[in-house]
Structures are given as structure tokens and as C-alpha cells.
């Protein structure tokens, strides 16, 4: 149940993020869309690692070892993905700052050099 809810939320966030990424002219809004997309993917990955009735994989006492825990591998992967996503977002924001300093606008349509 929790897993299904998580995967639906994640999928919706991915779609909203893609929509925001494609339909906005403003670079900052595109970056926000990308971040939403990123968060959606993280939630979907976490939902794949969910085990029915499992708790967080923190074994307080060695005698707790037999209990049901959720999968730690997707969680570790998402931890990595969050950090990389943060690096990418910072990188994109840097480009946005530099583009604004060059042209004085953040409207993607004003950057004619990029058109094909």
C-alpha cells in the first residue's frame, strides 16, 4: 500500500517535472522542473525497494536481526543520486547566472545562438 502510494506520487512528480521542464521559457523555472523530475525519480526508486511491512534498515540490537527491513540498496543509491542531483542543479544555476549576466534576461527564447 505504502509502496503503491509512493510509486504513484513519484510518477506524478516525474510527469509534472517534465511538463515544467518543457513548457517554461524561464530558465529558473526549467531548473525547478528538473528538480521535481529528479525528486520523482528518487521516490520511484525508493518505492521499488519497499518490502511489505518492513521498517527502516537500522538494526538497533543484534537480536533484532531477523526482523523485516526494507531494501537498503535503493536507499544508498538514492542518497548518491540526491547528491549528484544537487551538483547538477548548482551547475545549471551557475549557467543561468552567467547567461543572465551576458544578456540581462532569463528567457530562453532570447538566446538565439541556441536555435537550430
Amino acid at each position, binding site marked *: 500500500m505504502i509502496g503503491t502510494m509512493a510509486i504513484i506520487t513519484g510518477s506524478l512528480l516525474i510527469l509534472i517535472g517534465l511538463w515544467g521542464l518543457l513548457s517554461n521559457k524561464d530558465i529558473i523555472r526549467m531548473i525547478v522542473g528538473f528538480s521535481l523530475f529528479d525528486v520523482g525519480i528518487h521516490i520511484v526508486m525508493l518505492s521499488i525497494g519497499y518490502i511489505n511491512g518492513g521498517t527502516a534498515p*537500522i538494526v538497533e540490537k543484534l537480536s533484532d536481526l531477523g526482523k523485516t527491513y526494507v531494501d*537498503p540498496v535503493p536507499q*544508498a543509491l538514492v*542518497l548518491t543520486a540526491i547528491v549528484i542531483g544537487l551538483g547538477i542543479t548548482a551547475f545549471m544555476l551557475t549557467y543561468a547566472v552567467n547567461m543572465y549576466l551576458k544578456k540581462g534576461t532569463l528567457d530562453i527564447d532570447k538566446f538565439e545562438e541556441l536555435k537550430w
Partner: protein
Amino acid sequence: MVKKGFILLMIVALGFMLWDFVGNYSSKTELADVSSHYVEQGPEELGAANVVTSVVVTYRGLDTLGEVTILFAAAAVVGLLLHLNRNENEQRREGSELLKTGTALLFPLILLFGVYVFINGHLTPGGGFQGGAIIASAVVLSVLSDPNKKAGHTALTVIESLSGLTYVLLGAAGAILAVNGFLDNRILPLGEYGSLLSAGLIPAIYSVVGLKVGSELSSVVISFKGDSKEEEV
């Protein structure tokens, strides 16, 4: 109009893919082989209560080293690109009295909390990356409250390089001293399960990662603020 159609088409196509994926989803009832080894043997093998930490720091430690490297590259490139194009010493409006007083009170507390989070990474949810992000949030607060203050870029670079070097050296020590190779945490005694000084090298490695991530994210924040040309500590 054509562009709108394309966007709609893309979203519908991705939605269709996800629909199939969501429709076939049912949460698993048991772990896959690797994961069940991590969960069932991990705590005894490595002495870390938090299994995610033992995966991140030891079992897949090499990946984490790569991740930290990518973060370093991102921070360096952000610093470089913003350095080239920054506006001259413009004066920024100072933070309000409330923000300044609040920062003076909260800054050390947030730093302390960050250190707590990364030192306890092997026992509680948390660890180097989370603790580093908390430390960087303290720096955000101080940048907001006093934007005209010159930032200590040199100090951040020194902390970052030293902790990165320590990370690699600790990993290499694992390769030399222990049986299981690079980044093995069992070159120190595992200690009493669940206590702060347990799980061998994991607290040391995660503290180093925390310092490194904290200083990298702080330097990203300070780069975004601008006027970082005249470095002083």
C-alpha cells in the same frame, strides 16, 4: 502550437510508460540476495547499526569516493564559472536585526547539529552527506545575514582538500592492512555494537566525508553570493 503538441505528446508517452510500470507494481515481500546479505550479515560483519551507512561507506565505498569526486568537480566548476563573470563590489542590503541576532544564536548550534549527524551516521539515520548539508545550511544563514562579509575561501579549500586526502588515505590503509581491500573498515576494532566508537573506520570516514561535503556545499553557496575575489581567512 506545434511545440505545445510535442510537449503533450512527450508527457503522454512518458505517462503511458509509467502507467504500465505503476500498474504492474506490487511491493516485494522478501529481499533480493545481495540486499538480504547486507541486512542480515552486515551488522555483525561491519558493526554498523545503520545498514544504509554500511552499504554507502564500506560495501559500495568506492562509489561514494566517486560521488564525492563528482561533487568536488561540481563545486570547482561552479566556483570557476561564477568567478569569471562576477559583478564588482556592489553593496548588498544587510540582513535585519532579527536575522542577525538569530544567526549569531543559531550558527554554532546548527554546526554542532551537523557534526552530531555525521558522527552518528553509523547508528542513526544520517551521515556525512546529510551532516555536510546541515553545515552548509548554517553557512547559508550567515551569508544571508551579512552578505558583505568576505568569505573564507582559503580555509574552506584547505578543509576540503585535507578531508579528501584523509578519505583516500583511510581507504588505502584498508587496502594495505585488511583482508578485504580498499575502504575496509575493520582495520580498527569493531567495538561494542551500537556505541559511538564502534564499526571500525566508518565514523572516521563519514566524519571526513561530512567535512568535505560541508565545505564543498558552503563554497558553492559562497560562490553564488559573488564578490569572492579577495580571499582572506
